[in-house]
């Protein structure tokens, strides 16, 4: 089956081309084309995953896309091809699954929008580039699709380009990503210059021999810049909250499940590069941990439902990065998988709420449980999974991460992890109690969404429940294999539960829910008085630690100012110098012209004076 792996990305590409070329005017037809092609690549992905489970050996084939020869030997070869191993297979499944569900969901959500077929074309292009990135076998091809994914996110965030905020958000997303990709590109080129190849397998063979050298440290950090941009780690996180300007299914697909996961995937794919330098791992772990805490605190006070989910995604990504940084690729990827399901569920749920209420501020919602039962209850399941309550997927993956942090003696991060678990539970249930239950605040007349929107919710809800079990000890005894034996770095790990840690994290989660219940459901402690007491902290969190303003200031004052200075140099100094010499020459010409007075004797005088001067010189 692997030899058909190149078909997975080409199907969405074909869909994109068909929509753009043929079916642009027929809205529904283009939707059907997009969804069916995506479904096709989903089936293909599933079959490859199954085949990979049977015999997990990696297969790689590529073509020499571009070769530069100097004196008959090839100096540089750029390859295009695919590398299918358990990691790629899992990622393909996640991407195609979520894409198909979002496409299905969007048919309902985007009905009536005049850019309907343009929307489906962009999504197909996005799926193509994401899949291209996932199955690529070398850093060059990864970088190519990495940029294309950035482009698609730019196009989709700025889909409603007539909204100025959307246009700004899309530009911000693209530029922030470009800043990060700058480091990534330098890293790749550095790798090529030092190790001589872009190919993953060749590189991992060569890097394996080196340990903790300075060059590897620099290259590791540079390459890590790319994932920091794409997965919105701390300094590059500013674009993700603003990316919510795009349509909600997009936020679900791109800014929850797939694109932001690309960063984590890349770290996993090139894990040997990071793993071989301890200090890089520490950096990754602490950046992940810090981002998790940082985002979770901001989410506490947000009013917009999509902003809360965005910050929660940020925090969960921090979690995954922490897991990778700590040293366990498996737990990171496992959390990525489960998170993809329930976060997509939460976003789609939020989408159907917004679709019904036409407002994104949670304080204008309330009392939806009776009007939209499926959406509400699937949303609650998602929140439970996210908070890590026992049977659901979140519990298993979060618990896995916490155990791994403890095992690798990162006690500080372990405490931070549990605190984040508490905060996550708190802000999720704050949202639930305000928006879904409680009394109806504004005169919205909510109604349940159509089947195309609720079916994906149900599927995702089931997955959020079931997905966690894959990595449980019972599943391992029953089927002889589990997630961690399937997808691992160096050697497989047998899943085992450490009840003490699991208990602690569940306690934190339940505590979070309880506190949220006290403040928002029962209003024993009024939220406003709390906000009053911690006035400073509240406003700080509300304004996202003023980082946006900082970047804005740096950009407007710094860049534009510098541009003005350089423009000044260009216009007045350089132009002044060259034009100045021209006018100088011209004015000397005008002055000299007046010397010709027209008087005959002056000419004779000049003649004789010249002769006298020459003889004085000559006869000395």
């Amino acid at each position, binding site marked *: 089956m692997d030899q058909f792996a190149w078909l997975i990305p080409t199907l969405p590409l074909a869909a994109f081309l068909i929509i753009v070329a043929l079916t642009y005017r027929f809205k529904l037809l283009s939707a059907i084309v997009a969804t069916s092609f995506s479904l096709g690549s989903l089936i293909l992905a599933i079959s490859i995953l199954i085949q990979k489970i049977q015999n997990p050996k990696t297969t790689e084939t590529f073509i020499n896309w571009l070769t530069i020869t100097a004196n008959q030997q090839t100096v540089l070869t750029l390859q295009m091809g695919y590398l299918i191993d358990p990691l790629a297979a899992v990622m393909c499944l996640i991407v195609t699954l979520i894409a198909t569900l979002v496409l299905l969901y969007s048919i309902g959500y985007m009905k009536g929008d005049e850019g309907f077929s343009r929307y489906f074309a962009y999504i197909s292009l996005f799926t193509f580039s994401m899949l291209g990135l996932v199955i690529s076998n070398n850093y060059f091809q990864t970088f190519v699709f990495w940029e294309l994914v950035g482009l698609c996110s730019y196009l989709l965030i700025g889909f409603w380009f007539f909204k100025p905020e959307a246009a700004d958000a899309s530009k911000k997303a693209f530029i922030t990503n470009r800043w990060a990709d700058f480091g990534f590109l330098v890293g790749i080129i550095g790798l090529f210059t030092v190790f001589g190849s872009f190919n993953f397998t060749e590189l991992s063979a060569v890097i394996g021999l080196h340990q903790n050298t300075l060059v590897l440290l620099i290259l590791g950090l540079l390459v890590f810049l790319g994932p920091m941009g794409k997965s919105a780690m701390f300094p590059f996180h500013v674009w993700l909250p603003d990316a919510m300007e795009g349509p909600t299914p997009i936020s679900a697909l791109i800014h929850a499940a797939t694109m932001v996961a690309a960063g984590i995937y890349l770290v996993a794919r090139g894990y040997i590069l990071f793993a071989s330098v301890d200090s890089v791992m520490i950096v990754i772990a602490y950046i992940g941990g810090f981002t998790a805490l940082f985002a979770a605190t901001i989410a506490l006070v947000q009013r917009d439902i999509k902003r809360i989910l965005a910050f929660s995604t940020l925090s969960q990504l921090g979690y995954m990065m922490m897991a990778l940084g700590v040293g366990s690729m498996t737990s990171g990827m496992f959390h990525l998988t489960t998170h993809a399901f329930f976060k997509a569920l939460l976003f789609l749920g939020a989408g159907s709420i917004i679709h019904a209420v036409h407002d994104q501020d949670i304080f204008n919602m309330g009392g939806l449980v009776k009007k939209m039962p499926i959406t509400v209850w699937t949303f609650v399941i998602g929140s439970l999974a996210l908070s890590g309550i026992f049977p659901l997927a979140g519990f298993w993956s979060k618990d896995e991460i916490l155990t791994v942090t403890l095992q690798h003696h990162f006690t500080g991060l372990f405490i931070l992890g549990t605190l984040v678990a508490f905060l996550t539970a708190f802000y999720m249930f704050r949202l639930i109690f305000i928006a879904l239950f409680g009394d109806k605040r504004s005169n919205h007349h909510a109604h349940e969404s159509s089947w195309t929107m609720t079916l994906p919710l149900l599927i995702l809800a089931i997955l959020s429940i079931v997905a966690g079990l894959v990595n449980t000890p019972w599943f391992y005894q029953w089927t002889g294999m589990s997630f961690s034996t399937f997808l691992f770095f160096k050697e497989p790990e047998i899943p085992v539960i450490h009840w003490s840690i699991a208990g602690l994290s569940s306690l934190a989660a339940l505590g979070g829910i309880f506190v949220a219940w006290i403040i928002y459901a029962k209003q024993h402690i009024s939220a406003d008085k709390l906000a009053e007491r911690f006035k400073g902290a509240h406003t700080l969190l509300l304004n996202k630690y003023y980082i946006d303003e900082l970047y804005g200031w740096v950009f407007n004052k710094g860049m534009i100012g510098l541009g003005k200075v350089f423009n000044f140099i260009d216009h007045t100094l350089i132009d002044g110098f060259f034009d100045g010499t021209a006018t100088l020459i011209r004015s000397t010409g005008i002055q000299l012209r007046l010397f010709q007075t027209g008087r005959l*004797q*002056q000419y004779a*005088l000049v003649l*004789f004076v010249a*002769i*006298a001067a020459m*003889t*004085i010189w000559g*006869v000395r």
Partner: protein
Amino acid sequence: MISLFYLFSAILLVFALGTVISTNLIHSALLMMGSFFAVAGLYLLLQADYLAMVQILVYVGAIAILLVFGVMLTRKGSIEESNLPNRYKGIGLLTALGLFGLLARSIYYTRFPAPPIGHPTQSILAIAQAFLLQYFVAFEALGILLLIAILGAILIGRDSK
């Protein structure tokens, strides 16, 4: 013999200075004629008898008279101010004196080789031979030149009706 040279030179230089300084154009014309005579005298001292005769005939006889005619025809306003100096009087004097000083200095410092002792030739015969043989082309060209002068005088000088 020696005094004759000084006599002629003195007359020459005094009359020349006179022509150049006087503000009355007629005086300067006449003084010029006198100086041409002195030049003819010098030629005689240098055994260039034919030259002296040509000098008197052409310069004194033709050119000086022509200039006097010119002076007469272009009289305007009082004759006393007919030949005033222009704005370059000072610099002109300075340049002239400078040139003379430099020239005199160079002449003073050049040691001319001893003159070969040869007998002066019969000048007229030799000049005629040179005119018609070695310098025939120059001679013809001089003829054309004079024709041009006449043609020019007619074309330009004549008052067009």
